[in-house]
């Protein structure tokens, strides 16, 4: 595929829009489905593997309008049904088609607090875009209206034109809310509770805010500026921020309530416990969890060699084990850190990969090699205890398992050796046990996820939870949705209203 520059996309879009602009409201459904789906301009792959800048560059204004005109404004809004937070998608898209980007932003914000982030990282192809009528009509989910890109465009437009306003804050109530963890779940709880006039403090274990958005998802997919802006807004709203503060260690959870006078606590501590394969050789020098590798590169900035004090392992040939977003991020980061060969080793096939489709495509363009239907059996090391290869097995797909995905079955005697010096394990994360270990009263399920009711309340009074610590490693949008529901319950609790009547559906 030849690489088109943003200027080329822009030129093409300008020509198209001249044709449609006068007829925005009169286009027939047939005509709309004929409008070419707008591609996302991106940095040239050969250049971007040498920098950390964002890969996807975002639609131009003309592209956004053309893409918006592809929307049929369906009466039965399949897209909205499949949006975890029920953004009124056709309504915001209609504003985009009419160049009313501020109006579009307003519509999105009724339901989502972090559009610049969700527009970039949501798995739209299995949410809103999956059921989009246009995609169905064209029998290709890739041809669905690019809802995520439009969302991103609107959020970026708002940010870049300085149109982001500080939300209105109700008069101070004198009530205090503690938010533990500053991932997407915690950030939205802080915003929603502060808006009601409560005093809010965010406690974060790390020295920087953002949770996985900061330490996990790389700059080239989600620039730090965007997270910083969200945090600046929270600060401007008067949210107090305490970094380097591990609840359960620096201060006991119950002390926040009993000694420090917090009226409610939200736990958004995430799924920060790396899962390893439990295979031979996993503790050799050169084997990393994706969390460690990405934290070194992102949060600790090891990418900026010479500037950062945190070292990153010098690798020539890397195998990344896993097929999700975490695996894609680790593989693509490894490439940017100078690895000559990066393999993604995945037990199933491309179809079953849980990663966002766009990331897989981008990874391929960047020269990442995918080894499907293969998996590591053991990791091999040299006399110094350093990785010098992995023994892999080949698989085929068998019967579907409980998740409905066809289960990989190993092929007998299919062992072979992959020559690598580094292995990154990216097969998943489970719940961070720190809070539950220091508070055995809080009920967790067998995977260590905190159990909550439909109002996000835990088994302990005044304590709520949401996001990955409840769902297990999930998604940004689900974490945000749970955060909003929790904030709503907290706000009701603090206003003295019962939290059982009318739970707002996000």
């Amino acid at each position: 595929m030849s690489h088109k520059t943003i200027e080329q996309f822009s030129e093409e879009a300008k020509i198209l829009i001249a044709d449609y602009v006068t007829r925005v409201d009169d286009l027939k459904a047939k005509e709309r489905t004929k409008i070419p789906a707008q591609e996302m301009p991106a940095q040239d792959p050969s250049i971007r593997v040498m920098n950390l800048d964002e890969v996807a560059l975002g639609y131009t204004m003309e592209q956004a309008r053309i893409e918006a005109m592809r929307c049929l404004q369906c009466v039965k809004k399949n897209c909205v049904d499949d949006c975890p937070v029920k953004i009124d998608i056709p309504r915001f898209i209609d504003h985009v088609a009419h160049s009313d980007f501020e109006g579009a932003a307003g519509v999105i914000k009724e339901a989502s607090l972090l559009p610049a982030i969700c527009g970039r990282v949501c798995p739209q192809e299995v949410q809103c875009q999956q059921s989009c009528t246009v995609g169905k009509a064209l029998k290709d989910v890739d041809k669905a209206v690019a809802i995520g890109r439009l969302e991103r465009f609107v959020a970026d437009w708002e940010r870049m034109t300085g149109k982001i306003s500080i939300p209105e804050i109700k008069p101070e109530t004198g009530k205090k809310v503690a938010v533990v963890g500053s991932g997407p779940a915690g950030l939205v709880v802080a915003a929603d509770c502060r808006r009601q006039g409560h005093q809010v403090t965010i406690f974060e274990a790390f020295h920087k805010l953002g949770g996985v958005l900061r330490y996990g998802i790389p700059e080239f997919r989600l620039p730090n500026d965007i997270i910083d802006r969200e945090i600046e807004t929270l600060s401007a709203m008067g949210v107090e921020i305490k970094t380097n503060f591990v609840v359960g260690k620096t201060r006991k959870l119950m002390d926040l309530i009993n000694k420090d006078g917090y009226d409610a606590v939200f736990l958004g501590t995430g799924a920060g416990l790396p899962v390893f394969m439990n295979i031979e050789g996993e503790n050799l020098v050169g084997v990393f969890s994706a969390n460690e590798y990405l934290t070194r590169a992102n949060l600790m900035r090891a990418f900026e060699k010479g500037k950062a004090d945190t070292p990153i392992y010098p690798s020539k040939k890397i195998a990344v084990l896993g097929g999700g977003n975490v695996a894609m991020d680790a593989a693509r980061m490894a490439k940017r850190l100078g690895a000559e060969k990066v393999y993604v080793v995945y037990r199933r096939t491309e179809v079953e990969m849980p990663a966002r489709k766009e990331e897989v495509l981008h990874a391929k363009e960047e020269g990442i090699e995918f080894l499907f239907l293969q998996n590591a059996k053991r990791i091999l090391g040299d006399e110094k205890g350093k990785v010098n290869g992995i023994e892999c097995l080949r698989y085929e797909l068998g019967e579907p398992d409980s998740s409905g995905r066809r289960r990989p079955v190993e092929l007998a005697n299919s062992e072979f050796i992959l020559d690598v010096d580094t292995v990154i394990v990216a097969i998943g994360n489970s719940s961070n046990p720190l809070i539950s270990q220091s508070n055995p009263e809080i009920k967790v399920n067998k995977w260590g996820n905190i159990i909550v009711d439909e109002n996000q309340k835990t088994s302990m009074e005044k304590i709520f939870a949401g996001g990955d610590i409840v769902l297990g490693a999930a998604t940004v949008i689900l974490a945000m949705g749970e955060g909003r529901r929790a904030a709503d319950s907290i706000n009701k609790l603090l206003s003295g209203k019962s939290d059982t009547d009318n739970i707002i559906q996000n």
Partner: protein
Amino acid sequence: MNKILFKEQLSKDVYLMRIAAPMIAEERAAGQFIILQVDEDYGERIPLTIADADINEGSITIIYQVVGKSTLALSKMNVGDEIPALVGPLGTATHIEKFGTVVCVGGGIGVAPLHPIAQALKNAGNKVITIIGARNKDLIILEEEMKSIADEFIVCTDDGSYGRKCLVTEPLKELCERDEKPNMVIAIGPPLMMKFCSETTRPFGVFTQVSLNTIMVDGTGMCGGCRVNVGNKVKFVCVDGPEFDGHKVDFDNMINRLNSYKEIERDVHNCYLDALVDEKESKI
């Protein structure tokens, strides 16, 4: 925030600092550590044991050796300066009870984390026998402090410039050979020292606890960078430790992992090469 209240150079490369950290001072127990950064954006996260704490002053004490760029930068900071990022207390506290006779073995800078543990053991009614060792006389730290809480006290140096000329394992073996074997040994120091202390006590069946100082990033169980094999199980030092049964720790693997970045560090911090080599030699 975390202001430096007091600074003292204990030996050539070893410094003591008292830092304002009221909450940590209140919550910490012997055996726990903090992580600090000398720069919020580019600094690495350095784990350091809490050597002491003063609840009234709201301070914690750290003792560290200059071994690389970050600890050198820390040593250049002065009273009144703020540590940009400091988090803790992390890790699991030492289990303290009355065991009977406990031998506390400290090697080099390892005497710093050993001190609060020895103190707590003493307070719990144990007979405390202390062995401290270093490469030479100048590298002995906290001698008076350790002596004042010890029922028996032994100092040794590799070169014989002070105390007995031997490795700490020699008196440790003698103690194990006594009619009344110690009930427990706690050994803290360079990895090789802890390995050989564990090997020394193994034939006598004396439980030996070691405190591991692996590479760490977050210190909260999120990255797994600190993992070690203990009795064929993978443990995270930052949350499951830092203390483990020395007879079960796979020291060879741990030492390999500790050296993961040695080559790069050499390149980057060439000027600290000497310090590194020194430290290597001082191991045992």
